[in-house]
């Protein structure tokens, strides 16, 4: 069995190339900012309590979150370069710092879209969001209860999830209400929503899905480390894992021991998983190749740990609920961004500013 080997120092040339690239791209952007920003005016007036202020507060929060991630990433380098010791910064730091910053962002995500431009009345907002608040609290607690146990962390995550969903629902509900001057049913009103608005709502729902996935997986993930020989079974969260066989396989550049795990639920077959322990011919360090079955409501994950006496293996089995919603949420955020960016009104404005550009596109 192999431990780590200290190889010779890594080549800094790749790093230098990336650094040069960053210096040009980011340096160029900041130079452009230094040159053009002083020429930008103050814009129009707005009150201290208004949609504009909420957007600006949102920007401040995002910038602080970004700077915090930058601080955490660079801090070990800073200390090392100054000869003040070597520490490591990882997920415990980022979780402690990033999550509290995101809570107010999520709160604003609910309130902001409902706030009025230039001046908004807080009592009015509170009244419009009353229903959303109630639904959020009930849904968050109900989800925790249905999942098996209610914890502080999961509840915070669910509150964030359902707050966004309820606020989106409230926003959409208000927009389909009959309003003066527009003669259309609620479907018609829905279709009238500008693409940028739809993009915003989709992106917000992406954040909700993300928060839901993270809360579910962090709190309700189940893991079992078991000693299994061929023929043994283990059960996790209603799924039965049967270790049918173990064999040696040859890969293009590796040799592996491969386990065959039959997964069933209530007697019905679900999937066959093939975790491997590979030894690559050049590197010679054993690598663990986990077998994953992705799903809409859960991922199943099996990996081979170490072999033990008697031909058995330590096997790790995970059931990760809703973990793919994390990726799905990010996809929704990207989709929302794309929808908003392709809103025709951005392009129309540009055409109005440059009459030399002649197009045949219809007016928005």
């Amino acid at each position, binding site marked *: 069995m192999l431990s780590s*080997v200290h190889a*010779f120092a890594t080549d800094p040339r790749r*790093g230098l190339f990336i650094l040069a690239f960053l210096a040009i791209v*980011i340096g160029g952007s*900041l130079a452009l900012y230094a040159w053009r*920003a002083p020429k930008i005016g103050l814009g129009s007036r707005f009150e201290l309590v208004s949609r504009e202020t909420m957007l600006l507060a949102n920007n401040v929060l995002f910038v602080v979150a970004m700077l915090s991630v930058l601080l955490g990433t660079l801090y070990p380098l800073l200390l090392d*370069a100054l000869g003040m010791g070597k520490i490591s910064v990882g997920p415990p730091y980022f979780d402690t710092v990033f999550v509290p910053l995101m809570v107010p962002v999520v709160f604003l995500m609910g309130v902001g879209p409902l706030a009025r431009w230039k001046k908004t009345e807080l009592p009015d907002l509170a009244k419009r969001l009353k229903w959303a608040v109630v639904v959020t609290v009930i849904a968050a607690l109900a989800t925790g209860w249905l999942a098996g146990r209610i914890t502080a962390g999961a509840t915070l995550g669910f509150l964030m999830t359902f707050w966004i969903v309820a606020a989106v629902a409230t926003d959409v509900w208000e927009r389909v209400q009959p309003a003066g001057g527009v003669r259309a049913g609620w479907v018609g009103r829905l279709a009238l929503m500008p693409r940028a608005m739809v993009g915003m709502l989709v992106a917000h729902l992406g954040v909700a899905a993300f928060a839901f996935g993270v809360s579910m997986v962090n709190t309700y993930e189940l893991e079992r480390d078991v000693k299994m020989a061929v023929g043994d079974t283990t059960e996790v969260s209603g799924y039965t894992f049967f270790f049918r066989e173990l064999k040696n396989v040859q890969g293009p550049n590796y040799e592996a021991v491969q386990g065959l795990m039959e997964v069933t639920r209530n007697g019905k077959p679900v999937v066959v998983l093939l975790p491997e322990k590979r030894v690559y011919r050049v590197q010679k360090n054993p690598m663990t190749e986990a077998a994953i079955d992705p799903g809409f409501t859960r991922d199943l994950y099996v990996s081979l740990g170490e072999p033990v006496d008697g031909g058995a293996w330590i096997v790790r089995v995970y059931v990760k609920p809703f973990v793919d919603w994390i990726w799905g949420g990010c996809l929704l955020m990207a989709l929302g961004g794309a929808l908003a960016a392709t809103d025709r009104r951005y392009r129309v404005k540009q055409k109005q500013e440059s009459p030399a550009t002649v197009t045949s596109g219809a007016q928005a």
Partner: protein
Amino acid sequence: MNMKSLRFIIPLGVFALLVFFLWRGLRLDPHEVPSPLIGKPAPSFALTRLDDANATLRRDDMLGKVWMLNVWASWCGACREEHPLLVEFSKTKAVPIIGLNYKDQRSDGLGWLNRFGNPYDASIFDQNGRVGIDFGVYGVPETFVIDKQGIIRMKHIGPLTPDVIDKRLMPMLRKLNA
């Protein structure tokens, strides 16, 4: 540009400082973990010799001498790279070299030394790696220099090179032997 618009240069200035630090950082190795044991007594150990399971070598046996501990293993490729250099260096008899055979099999370790040469005054056999953990070993090869009072004075991570021997090891040995 007037005075007021000079503040818009601040982000660019901060970024330039950042790039400087990142550039300096490219020289550092993120995987190198400096040892907190420099200046502290070498951990006490009592291990059997690789070539004789009935003979034991203890830390205190080495008191009164400056000596070098080289952590190696027969399964370690990088150790193969430093080994010829170590064999040459051992011929100068500059310092007693004790090998710590780390997480290996006795027969594999002895076979390896037979094939590639034996620079060690003695090798001690650390099969389960516990002594390695006490020394803060996290990979192979690693080399320690320990003074006459049993205090660790230097740790080198990774294979030894002629540069390391000339610029770090020899000056350290001269200083400790003075």
